[in-house]
C-alpha cells in the first residue's frame, strides 16, 4: 500500500471512531492505529488497513465497525485508581453527602466506566460504610461507549494483574473468588451497579440527576466542541451542588461555567446551583 493510500485509510477509520464516539485520534494515536487493529485484521483475514476500509464500506457499518471502534478505545483502568481520590471520597465527600442530604437517596454515575473497576471500587467503598448508608437508597449507573468493555464489566471477571493494581489484599479476599485463571467479583457488588453501553454526548441511560459523577480520563480524547457537549450533558445530569470528579490532568476551567472548583474538596468540582436555588439556600 502506498503512504497516501494508507493515510487515507487511517483518516477514514479515524472518522468512523469520531462519528461513533466523539473521540478524536491524536497524531500519536493515529500512527499506532494499525498496531491496535492488527489482531482484528488477522481474525478477519484482512491484509491491510485499505482492505479493512473496503470491507467496512461493503458492510455499511455492522459488527465489524463495532469491533474496529472497540479495538481503538483506550480501556485502561484499575481498582481505586488515583488512591488519594478514593481516600477523599471515603473519608470526606461521601460522609459529607450522608450528613447533608435531606432525602436518603444517593445516585452515582460512573461515566466512561471502562471494564468496571471504578464503579466496583465505589461499590466496595459504600459497602464498607454500611452503618453510614443504613436505610439509604443507593444506585450506581456505569456507562461506556464500548460494548466489549461493558460486557466484561458486567461479567465481573478480572485477571490476576487487574486484581492487584490498586486493590488491597483484604478487599480481594472479601469481594472476589478464584474462577480458573481469573477472579470473579461478588454478586453482591455486581447487583449494586447498572452497567450500560452509552455515549457521553447524547446519553440515553442517565435519568434525572446524580449526586456524584465520575468522568475521569475521558475528556482529553474529545475535541473542544465535543468537550463542551459532554460537560453540558454532565451538567444536565448533576444535582445542584452535586460533585464531579475528573481525571488528574483534566479541568472544567475554560470548558464550562456549569461546574466550579469545590472550596471544600481539593481537586473536585461542584455543579453550580441555579440562581433561584442558590437564593433559597441563602434564605434558609
Amino acid at each position, binding site marked *: 500500500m502506498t503512504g497516501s493510500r494508507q493515510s487515507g485509510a487511517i483518516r477514514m477509520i479515524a472518522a468512523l471512531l469520531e462519528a461513533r464516539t466523539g473521540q478524536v485520534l491524536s497524531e500519536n494515536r493515529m500512527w499506532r492505529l494499525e498496531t491496535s487493529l492488527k489482531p482484528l485484521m488477522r481474525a478477519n483475514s484482512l491484509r491491510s488497513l485499505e482492505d479493512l476500509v473496503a470491507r467496512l464500506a461493503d458492510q455499511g457499518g455492522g459488527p465489524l465497525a463495532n469491533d474496529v471502534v472497540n479495538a481503538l478505545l483506550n480501556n485502561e483502568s484499575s481498582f*481505586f485508581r488515583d*488512591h488519594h481520590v478514593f481516600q477523599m471520597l471515603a473519608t470526606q465527600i461521601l460522609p459529607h453527602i450522608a450528613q447533608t442530604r435531606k432525602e436518603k437517596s444517593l445516585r452515582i454515575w460512573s461515566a466512561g466506566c471502562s471494564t468496571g473497576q471504578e464503579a466496583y471500587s465505589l461499590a466496595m467503598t459504600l459497602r464498607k460504610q454500611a452503618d453510614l448508608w443504613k436505610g439509604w437508597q443507593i444506585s450506581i449507573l456505569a456507562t461506556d461507549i464500548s460494548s466489549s468493555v461493558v460486557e466484561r464489566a458486567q461479567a465481573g471477571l478480572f485477571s490476576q*494483574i487487574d486484581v492487584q*493494581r*490498586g486493590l*488491597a*489484599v483484604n478487599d480481594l*479476599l472479601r469481594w472476589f473468588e478464584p474462577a480458573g485463571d481469573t477472579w470473579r467479583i461478588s454478586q453482591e457488588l455486581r447487583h449494586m451497579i447498572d452497567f450500560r453501553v452509552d455515549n457521553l454526548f447524547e446519553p440515553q441511560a442517565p435519568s434525572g440527576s446524580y449526586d456524584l459523577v465520575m468522568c475521569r480520563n475521558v475528556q482529553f480524547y474529545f475535541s473542544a466542541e465535543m468537550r463542551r457537549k459532554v460537560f453540558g450533558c454532565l451538567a444536565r445530569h448533576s444535582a445542584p451542588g452535586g460533585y464531579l470528579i475528573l481525571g488528574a490532568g483534566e479541568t472544567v476551567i475554560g470548558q464550562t461555567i456549569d461546574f466550579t472548583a469545590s472550596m471544600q474538596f481539593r481537586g473536585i468540582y461542584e455543579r453550580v446551583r441555579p440562581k433561584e436555588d442558590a437564593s433559597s439556600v441563602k434564605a434558609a
Partner: protein
Amino acid sequence: MKNCLVVDDSKVIRKVARHILESLNISVSEACDGRDALNQCESASHDVVLLDWNMPVMNGMEFLQQLTATKAAASRPKVIFCTTENGLGHIKAALDAGADEYVMKPFDRDTLESKLQIVGVI
C-alpha cells in the same frame, strides 16, 4: 528517603524489584533468604520488606513468624509478600501471620506502586 529490604533467592527478581523501587525513589537493600533478612532487620531499620515465600535456609513464612515474635507491630517494617504461591490458602496464611499486603508474581510497576501506597510507604 524510604527504604525497602527485598528478600528473594532469585537474583533476577531482586534486580527487577530494585529497578522499580528505585524509580519510586525508595532505597533498596537485598537479602537472599529469610535468615539473611532477619540479620539485616536486627542491624538496620526498614520501612518495608518485599518478601518471597519459597527460599532456601529460611523461607518467607518462617522469617515473618520470627520477625513478629521479636518486634512489636509499631516498630517492625510493613511486610508485603511477593510470591508465586497464589492460592487463597496461602494468602490467608500470610495475613494471619502478620503480612500487610500480598503480591502475586508476576508483578509490574503499577502493582508494586499501588501496594506500597496501600501500606502507606508512599
